[in-house]
Each structure stands twice: as structure tokens, then as C-alpha cells.
């Protein structure tokens, strides 16, 4: 399936869930991350279970310097 992750398309195997998306982003740690799928925040407790479908838009954010 094809997801839109942080504005870019990402191809993943069907049945993948959020941890697979994060793994594919190649970032060192999942600490301090938050994920929204189609404009809704997904609590970390649901990352494993939320079923992702092709075409979904994910935002994977973390805190940066700002403000």
C-alpha cells in the first residue's frame, strides 16, 4: 500500500502499522514522537493496532527548537 507520510509517498507492505512507518523513516528513537492519521491524533497505545490503508495521510512529528 501507498501512504502519504509527512507529505511524501511511502510504499509499505499491506497490513503494516505505525511502528513500521516509523521504522521506515530511519530515525534513531521513537521517544517524543506523535502521530496523526488523516487529521486525528493516534495515541501510542493504538499504534500497533490501528489498521492503515492505502492513501492514508500520516504526520509524524516531534519537538524541535522553536518559539
Amino acid at each position, binding site marked *: 500500500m501507498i501512504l502519504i507520510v509527512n507529505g511524501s509517498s511511502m510504499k509499505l507492505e499491506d497490513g503494516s502499522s505505525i511502528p513500521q512507518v516509523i521504522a521506515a523513516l530511519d530515525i534513531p528513537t521513537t521517544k517524543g514522537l506523535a502521530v496523526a492519521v488523516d487529521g486525528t491524533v493516534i495515541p501510542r497505545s493504538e499504534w500497533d493496532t490501528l489498521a492503515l490503508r492505502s492513501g492514508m495521510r500520516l504526520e*509524524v512529528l516531534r519537538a524541535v527548537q522553536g518559539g
Partner: protein
Amino acid sequence: MREKLQIGGRVFQSRLIFGTGGFTSLHVMELALRESGAEMATVAMRRVDPRAKGSILEVIESAGCDVLPNTAGCFTAADACLTAQLAREALQTEWIKLEVIGDDRSLLPDGPELLVAAEKLVDEGFIVLPYCNDDPILARRLEELGCAAVMPLGSPIGSGTGIRNPLNIAMILERAGVPVILDAGIGTASDATIAMELGCDGVLAASSISKAKDPVRMARSLRLAVESGRLAYEGGRIPRRLYADASSPNEGLAEFDIDAS
């Protein structure tokens, strides 16, 4: 008089909030943060960047500071609320510095959108600190909605022009029942001192520190400026007058018979 700043039930020893944006490196930021004495430091929420090095959260934590996420960059109440929810999820904090701007050149707040977002986030249990105009009516409304503080601007973010309209800040202060934190516009130490002398409960400084020639020295300057301004507020300044008021006694002046000398 000497009570501490309290926001959302938390007591602060420092009245300076530290904005982390604009530093050339995390290391310089850390040094400045420690010099500033601040107990709370802002962060923005952005897409993960695999190339990014270091963790701002660890730096803030190791300095003994709490993190205050913001919603910088949001133009609508909806975006701001979602960003706040993501921040809560990512950082495990109910605190949010709420920014909803109307314009990307001035970065000025959009009052009506701000009210919508503030109401929703307060309902959802956030401790909401809204960045707002120096508009006494708007500030009162935000307080009525349950915001934990109001954060009126002195002037546009990063403009460094200080408090352009101190009388508006004074009007906000006169009726505020929650802490008033001067946000945005601080360019240098005296701007912060003036904010505190007006009676503000605290000051947020970002670019004034991070973009100074020597951010670490400027961080210490801002720390002292806020303390100095608070002490002046508590100490009760002398009135302003057009003419002089002698500081040496008028009595006991010698009368020299100079012609005879």
C-alpha cells in the same frame, strides 16, 4: 508582594520563559538556557527529520527545565488544536502555548480563531497559554474561557521593537485575574525590564537571546533584566516630574564671601 509566579497550579522561581528557536546549535542553546535561569522552555512541533542530530528534549530536561510546546505556524483553530493534541501525546504535558496567526509576514495573532481554539483546548483539559494581541478585550475573553495565563505581544515576533503600546499592556494588567506574560517583541534587556515594571508577571524571550551576537551573555542579561524589573515594580518607583527635585540638602549651604577671597 514577593509571591512567586504561579501558572496552572505550578509555582515558578523564575519569571523568564525561554524560547528555544533560532540558536545556531543545541550546545549554545544549552549554555544560554542554563544562564537564563528559566524553568520552562518552549518547543515547536515539526515533522521528524532523520538528519537531525541531538535531542532538544534531553537538553531541556538536563537543565532542569519543563517543556512548553507551542502551536507556532498554525493559521486555523483546527490546526492549532491538532498540534496541541500531538504535543500532548509526544511530550506528555497538558501545557500548551497556543499560537494561531493570521499572517505569515507579521505573525500577528488571529483573535477570533484564537478564541475558538482556546475554548476547545480548555475543554479538553489543556493548560492553555495563548499568545495574543495587546488587546484588553481579547485578553479578558481568553481569561473568561479558562486560559491559565495570557501572553500579549509587545510587538511582532522577532521584531525586537519592545513594547510598542505600554498603555494597552497596562490596561490588560489592570483587570487580569490570571498571570500576564509579555510574549514577543523583546529586543534587549530593557524591554524585559519595562515589561516587568509595568507589572507583568513574566516575560518570554526567544530571538532576543538566540539571535544576539553573544547568546549566552544575553541570556544572563535577560535573567537579570527580569529580576531587576520585578524588584523595581515591588520597590515602588518615584514619580515622574517635569522639573528637578534636589537630591542634596537645600539647608546648610555655605555662603562664601567670594569677593573677599
